[in-house]
């Protein structure tokens, strides 16, 4: 029984790693989970036997063992979500730093000539690219 639960939780964490979900629902679920956690923590102060009871029901044995298992799973989940958030942050930093680098780079030949001469170099359709064209989201 406990093995199934743990396996599902670990798979869930791995799924977050591979394909991180974001959005309102996700955030709401996280907050609900946090509220439940606080409630559970407070309740277990008053009814510590519930852990032993839950552990026996799940076939773990002792309540402390169950808590340890849950802690490990929670830690894995934290690692997974923070990894995903870190990746996103890194991507944003990259895009930002690139814009900065391109903005402070010397203008390319024709762009410079056009600015100096006042005549615009012929730009072919769809070629207006340049640093501004980078997709800020940037994800494929």
């Amino acid at each position, binding site marked *: 029984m406990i093995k199934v639960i743990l396996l599902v939780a670990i798979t869930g964490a791995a799924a977050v*790693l*591979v394909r991180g979900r974001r959005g309102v629902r996700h955030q709401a679920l996280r907050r609900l989970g946090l509220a439940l956690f606080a409630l559970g923590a407070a309740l277990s102060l008053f009814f510590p036997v519930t852990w032993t009871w839950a552990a026996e029901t799940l076939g773990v044995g002792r309540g402390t063992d169950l808590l340890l298992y849950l802690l490990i799973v929670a830690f894995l989940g934290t690692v997974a979500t923070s*990894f995903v958030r870190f*990746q996103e942050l*890194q*991507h944003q*930093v*990259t895009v930002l*730093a*690139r814009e*900065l*680098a*391109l903005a*402070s*780079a*010397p*203008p*390319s*030949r*024709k*762009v410079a000539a056009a600015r100096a001469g006042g005549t615009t*170099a*012929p*730009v*072919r359709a*769809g*070629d207006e*690219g*340049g*640093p501004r*064209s*980078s*997709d800020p989201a*940037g*994800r*494929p």
Partner: protein
Amino acid sequence: MLDATSDDPADTCVVVPLYREEEVVGDVVRGLRRSFPRVVCVDDGSGDGSAREARRAGAVVVEHPFNLGQGAAIQTGLQYALTDPTTDYVVTFDADGQHQVEDAVAMVDTLRRGEADLVLGSRFLDGRTQLPWLRRLVLRLAVAHARATTGLAVTDTHNGLRAMTRAVAARIHLTQSRMAHASQLLEQVARMDVVHVEQPVHILYTPYSRQKGQSLWNSVNIITESLFR
């Protein structure tokens, strides 16, 4: 090639991702500029004299404010190259001196003749490149993986020497900042409907490049980077 094309070499922009190569980048840029007047070095937060040496050798230098990774540097270089409306071809070329300028010239010639939109360098198409067996094995595995995932019949996936048309360059969006960008590039190319060919290139493994070059440990990093994203 032999048919005297009046094509101006200035229609080609060479992008050189640059990270801590102050000893050799000057010679690399000077060598390139004998065939390609326009060389853009993207200094990836080297913190040494790399940017200065590249500039002194006649390259335009775009400087990342801090180290972002080779993939990010290539992407920056491509975007910079595209700011010039006269750029018709873009070449990516490593800063450590292991690529040959003649190979790059031959690749651009292939593009000029309209035989392909993208030319990828491969060190496995002829016997010129000598490399240690373990490195060869790891590269072969990477090739097998790329063939399986992208369906492209390539023979060398981690080769920094490539030439592409403007249209292809504009459609590449590398988000794998570190080293997994080589596979990502191939994935994106596989989704485009473009003609790509491979061209034999010679990779010169000098004691310098061997000492500087990627450790094989990095292949572990590459695999995890492409798995978790």
